[in-house]
């Protein structure tokens, strides 16, 4: 049963991810992205990582994709890119990528030695929080500065200029 569910969700994730790439309508692509995220969250749940699944749904599916959709609808893009989506160079690049991927998978099957199991039962909220505020306190503080400069950047790059008419 678990195997069946794993294949189901893995297939759903990959299929939806391909839908993001090949879809020419931005809204449809964003919805495919949402589906793909839901599949990944389901895979996390099957690995007993409830926390990760929850955060994934909340942050990516809940916030990021909604932001994408918001921007896409705000811009009101009609019809998409007028150029032909699949040119010969696209096919060539896809062929090379497929060949590389096949080589990689074959050598992995031949020579790769994988760990037999995955870490079961990832830590819950309590241990996660305790780690964040003890062992990983410094990265958390640095992330604070990261968010600060990101916010400043948005202000600086979008604020109305002091002198009008300077935009070339």
């Amino acid at each position, binding site marked *: 049963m678990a195997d069946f569910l794993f294949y189901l969700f893995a297939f759903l994730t990959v299929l939806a991810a391909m839908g993001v790439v090949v879809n020419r309508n931005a809204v449809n692509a964003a919805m495919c992205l949402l589906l793909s995220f839901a599949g990944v969250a389901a895979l996390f749940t099957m690995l007993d990582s409830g926390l990760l699944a929850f955060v994934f749904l909340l942050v990516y599916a809940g916030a990021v994709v909604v932001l994408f959709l918001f921007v896409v609808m705000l811009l009101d893009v009609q019809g998409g890119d007028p150029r032909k989506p699949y040119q010969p160079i696209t096919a060539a690049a896809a062929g090379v990528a497929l060949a590389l991927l096949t080589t990689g998978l074959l050598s992995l099957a031949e020579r*790769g030695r994988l760990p037999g199991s995955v870490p079961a039962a990832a830590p819950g909220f309590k241990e996660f929080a305790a780690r964040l505020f*003890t062992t990983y306190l410094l990265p958390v503080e640095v992330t604070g*500065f990261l968010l600060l400069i990101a916010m400043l*950047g948005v202000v600086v790059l979008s604020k109305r200029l002091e002198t009008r008419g300077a935009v070339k």
Partner: protein
Amino acid sequence: MFAAINLSALQAAAGTNQWMAIYPELMLGLLALLLLGLELVLPKAPRALIPTVAIVGLVIVLVGLGINFHTAFLNRDTFAGLLHHSDGGQFMRVFFVLSAILVCILATVTLDRQPVSKVEFYHIVIVITAALMLLVQSNHFVMFFVALETVTVGFYILVSYFRTSAYSLEAGLKYLILGALSSAILLFGIVLLYGVAGSAGQQGALPGATAEPMNFGALRGFLAANPDNFLANIGAVLVLAGVAFKIGAVPFQVWIPDVYQGAPTPVTAFLAVASKAAGFAVLLTLVLNVFSPLQEVIVPVLSVMAAATILLGNLAALSQHNVKRLMGLSGVSHAGYLLVGVIAGCREPLAVGAVYFYLLAYLLASFAVFMVMAHVSGSDDADQDLEHYANLARERPFLGAVLAVGLGSLAGIPPLAGFMGKLLIFIAAFKAAAYLPSLYWLLLVAVAGVVVSIYYYFGWIKAAFFPAWRPPPMAGDAAPPVIARVGLTAGVTMVVLAFASVILGFYQGPLGAWLVTR
């Protein structure tokens, strides 16, 4: 509920958080916040002093670092193994603060000509500097990635800072997309390494598996036990590819010319010097320490990259007329020489000091050139053509002399620091070639690259010193930009940079002794 948390375990985990070990970074963080606070509370007129506050604050941190160079934390881990303090890390800390000072001085020259807000620029430069300092001392992939992302996000903003210029916005977008791609590649490599090295004590774990697979020391132990593990090798190569994006090594150099041209001149200098130096400091840690059991795979990969980087950087720079693109592409070739040093470092300890010395010489020469560029460029920061340098030496002999010293040092002309840097790297590579014969070929490529680079560096000097005949200006032609007056701070800085480039070429003193014997 609170009783359930084991307090003593938490205290033990937090006990290694010795904030004194990172006091320079803390001071920089406070300084950055102070700048924002000052802009909030000060009335309009004294706000012009804020850049001075930034520069003075950075100088104070630099002096503090110099006095306390041999800190009590040397060769120790702090923050539960997130950071490791070494004398190489101390050198890079000084290096980054020095380049931040120079970037701020450059910004005082350039920023006034543009309708942009000033204080945020200095704030972001200082935050990036602190993050760079943490990056080169990190000993754990979590710290490494957070610091790297802070640096990268800061650069996304700085590159598109002149947002009235279409070039700057284009550069920002390109840097954003390619930077995000490189971060994704790096992260994927880290995840693969985490996946194979983790799961200690579990059924089916690989030999040498560790409970802390993100820690550099523990990861190295795992790799030593499994040097032929396929996934671990892929992970290591992907991590190196992510770093190669930052240093602009071929085949990850595509972003360099456009981003260097569009970015404001101080940001171009910051990218060219500090960001690249951080990439190499990280590369030294990764190649010589963490991934050292995988050298069988890594050394050939890096060798091919180094040869391609030297050749492509030099050949592409030959045909450039825009001086910012020229600096970018010649910077690619410098990354190639430095890669030769990193490869040589696998067998010859002298090479590590040589790479540090090369970076210092590169800093002095590059900032001298960028200082002159900031004065010659007009209000359109992206349009800096070789033609604008015609008659520079006759009209402004001071700027011409500084330019000649900087370019001569970059080209590696004998009495200057850049020559000593190249010489040290080549000597180290020659010594290491006894163990790694492919280095002989790399040396050959590098020497050929140096010869080619003399052509375009001297083309620039020729444009500044020997006036060529030019058709008289037509009515519709845009007038060449007016060369800015050299202020006191900028003038003194240029004199110091030029003299340091000359003196370091003759006499390396205790610095050279420390670098060679470390």
